[in-house]
């Protein structure tokens, strides 16, 4: 390199001499001459954003985020903060994983393709379904994609999509946006003790239903007890049976394939990611019969020129970059790196570790519920069901006031009703739970 580096972007390596030589090569007097922008739309103002050194930029982020209160989060409701082993951070942060693009050149992407293939395999084992894609954005968008899949694979004129009345607002609303361009309409069916009211569902379901969605566990932490029966009901009416779950719950609870699920959606980022203000990883698995209707990317096995096994993106004719408006989905950039992290986390736990984690979520939720139930003016769990991870607590006092007081003590819980709180044990240590019981006892006294 010759000459001094040009100032401006700290990541543009040009020296003054290089810039001059390049301008001469393209026969231009200045860089501005290369911009083919009409004067009427040329921007000659400033954004007013100061440049900073790396140290200052780091400080700015740190100082801004330090305004956040340091709270113990006993929060769940579809998003969980399990401890992620350091192994995951260090390996996923290897720059080849971080700085590569979608694997359109498979010969130089084998490592990532294999890791994604292993992620797909993990989901196949957890769900029992034959096909899993290598990520959607989150549980809500995966549910939206399941609905558009139902719209494509169902031949009838049906237009009803049934979801539980407990469905999270963010999921329901996202689903509504996904089906806005179709004839589908989202309707709710009732729940009883926070699980599906199967009798009420039987009265609601008819031949117009294209999709019946059930979550296990539910958003209130209860475990569904009649999944196979609901599956039969859905199939009797030729509706797609879609189950919502996540990899930790799936390690212990009934295998979706065994209860007749056609599609499993959910958030796989319970493994591999910290809470990250709601960042997710959409899980999507389905039966082989819907393979050519699956949204998103699929990694498959092939052979290279020496007949050795090699991995590649496959069945791309479903995808937007080839099929354009006839694609199964518009998804392009997905959550590949999060899927890598999830696969790493799951691999580091192994089958015993995964099952133990889920079992602990059941017993610790049970124990905590029993401990707060002992307090005067508190009932827990409100729902007379088995729970995993979280449960609803009834308090005599206004729930919001109790939650505010708990926040003063350093604990965050959900307010889910005028006199109902929801508490989640996933991610919290035993010591934190002990301290919570102490604070809760004081607050409701």
């Amino acid at each position, binding site marked *: 390199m010759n000459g001094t580096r040009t100032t401006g*972007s700290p990541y543009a390596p040009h020296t003054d001499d290089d810039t001059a030589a390049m301008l001469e090569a393209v026969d231009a007097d200045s860089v501005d001459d290369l911009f083919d922008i009409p004067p009427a739309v040329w921007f000659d103002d400033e954004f007013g954003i100061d440049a900073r050194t790396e140290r200052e930029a780091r400080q700015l982020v740190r100082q801004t*985020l330090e305004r956040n209160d340091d709270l113990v989060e006993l929060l769940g409701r579809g998003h969980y903060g399990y401890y992620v082993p350091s192994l995951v951070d260090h390996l996923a942060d290897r720059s080849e994983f*971080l700085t590569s693009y979608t694997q359109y050149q498979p010969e130089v992407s084998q490592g990532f393709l294999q890791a994604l293939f292993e992620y797909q395999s993990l989901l196949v084992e957890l769900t029992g379904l034959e096909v899993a894609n290598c990520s959607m954005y989150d549980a809500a968008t995966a549910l939206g994609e399941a609905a558009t899949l139902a719209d494509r694979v169902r031949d009838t004129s049906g237009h009803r999509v049934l979801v539980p009345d407990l469905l999270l607002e963010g999921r329901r*609303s996202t689903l509504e946006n996904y089906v806005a361009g179709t004839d589908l309409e989202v309707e709710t069916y009732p729940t009883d003790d926070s699980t599906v009211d199967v009798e009420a569902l039987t009265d609601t379901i008819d031949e117009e239903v294209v999709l019946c969605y059930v979550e296990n566990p539910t958003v209130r932490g209860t475990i569904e007890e009649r999944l196979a029966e609901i599956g039969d009901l859905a199939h009797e009416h030729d509706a797609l049976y879609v189950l919502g779950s996540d990899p930790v719950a799936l390690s212990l609870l009934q295998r979706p394939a065994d209860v007749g699920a056609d599609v499993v959606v959910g958030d796989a980022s319970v493994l591999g990611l910290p809470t990250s203000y709601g960042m997710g990883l959409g899980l999507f698995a389905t039966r082989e019969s819907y393979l050519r209707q699956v949204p998103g990317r699929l990694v498959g096995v092939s052979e290279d020129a020496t007949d050795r096994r090699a991995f590649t993106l496959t069945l791309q004719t479903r995808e937007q970059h080839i099929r354009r408006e006839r694609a199964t989905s518009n998804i392009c950039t997905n959550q590949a790196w999060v899927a890598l992290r999830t696969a790493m986390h799951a691999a580091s736990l192994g089958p015993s570790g995964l099952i133990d984690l889920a079992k602990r979520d059941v017993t610790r939720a049970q124990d905590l519920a029993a401990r707060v139930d002992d307090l005067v003016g508190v009932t827990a769990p409100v729902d007379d069901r088995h729970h995993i991870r979280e449960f609803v607590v009834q308090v005599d006092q206004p729930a919001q006031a109790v939650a505010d007081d708990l926040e003063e003590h350093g604990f965050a819980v959900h307010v889910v009703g005028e006199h109902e709180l929801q508490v989640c044990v996933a991610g919290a240590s035993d010591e934190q739970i002990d301290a919570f019981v102490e604070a809760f006892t004081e607050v409701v006294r």
Partner: protein
Amino acid sequence: MSDQGQERERGQDQDRDRERRRELEQGGEREQKEGQGRRYDQARYVSNGHYEPLLSEKDSTHVDVDDDSPLPDDLTRDSLELPELSEPELARHYTRLSQMIYGIDSGPYPLGSCTMKYNPKFTEDVAALDVAAVHPDRSSGSIQGTLELLHRLQDYLARIGGMDAVTLQPPAGAAGEFVGIRVASAYHEHNGDDERDEVIVPESAHGTNFATAALGGYDVVTLPSDDGGRVDLEALEAALSERTAALMLTNPNTLGLFERNITEIAEMVHDVGGLLYYDGANLNALLGRARPGDMGFDVMHYNVHKTFATPHGGGGPGAGPVGVVDELAPFLPEPRVRERGGEGGEGETEYELFAPEHSIGHVHGFQGNWLVLVKTFAYIARLGDDGLLDASAKAVLNANYLADQIDYEVPYGPFHHEFVASAGDQDAADVARRMLDFGVHPPTTKWPEIVPQALMTEPTEVESKETLDTLAEAFQQASASSDDELESAPNRTAVGRIDQTSAARNPRLSWQALQDTNSGEDSA
């Protein structure tokens, strides 16, 4: 398979390895004579007949669930079968896998339309701060830092795009497009304008535009280009009508050309009551020099993982914030962040979440890809006005310089951040694989289809003249390659040329499927 059979197969594997090594060495010598380009040779690990075994081939452990289960049997699965490996084994597995990947830290990555620029390392650190780990259901009062950062980023992006309001929720560019289309829909519907059922998309547009418009329930009207590769105004006139909901346009377009008639195009679209949508994939070319809002665009998305350097992570996560003009702001997704009204004027500004008046609702279960947004914020804060202005300057300089230096024909012009060369008589995909032999990542191939055997090249601002010269040399060597050399490439990568057809014809998408195939063969 019998032990003898396995032995025989292992022997054949070793023969194959030796043979391949010989081929590679000979090929390597030949290439060394051919050119001086720097090489990026990938690690190859061959054991047990595979490059790197699957986790399931190293270990497969079957665990019954019922032992000590705190739940009744009928609520649990019977068993789980997955690999159970030690931490050192996993560290090696994933390290080996990473060594079989080419990233921007490995070498130049001139993928047209994908803006693969270097990502500074400090942004990873800021996103890894413990304070970045917050649950999305926290009370606003307890996460003022998170909300302040989001508010500042909304403001930065609004200034950069010339837009009035920004949502940060969409988790990717295509998700941003979807928000744009849903917002356009909601706006028209709100105005009682229900007859608009068409979205116009130029033929050179990203595939996502077509798919997004279709997902939004619209008929897609494809717009041909004129002889110069830009929007054909007569064709646009013919396509526009009272049925037009929006025109989706990227500027500069995917050929790297600036749509010089943009103010006229905006006027034409607005005259029929349609909205003008800006696909932000190519915004890197305009930073500090032109703004979509000033060009008459009503709604746009920002690919922050392209323009503002958050690494692509092998295909995501990205984020696709959407900016709109005032008229469309009431329709943006919820929640958005704003300054809390009526603060006493003392102390720090407070922030809160709110739902815009006619919001389309959520497009993500929670708040989108937060970690990506933190990196975006840090990157913009690092560069500031001067850095952003310089980024577009060097991106455009690099594209024009490289276009000038290569042998292949480059139609159209003048170029902004990218150009599309034609491989002519050669197959562009072969050219791409051949370029891998010269140690560089190839450009995007065979798209846009306007250019036959397209090689769509975007060097970005982070490549030096020296690296561009290396790239130019790789293009030249590829163009001078014989048919044999093109058809046998690549030879220096972790695996050889991959048979795509058999992968699609006989889909095997999990290690379970591989096992099934193998056991099928055994029994046959």
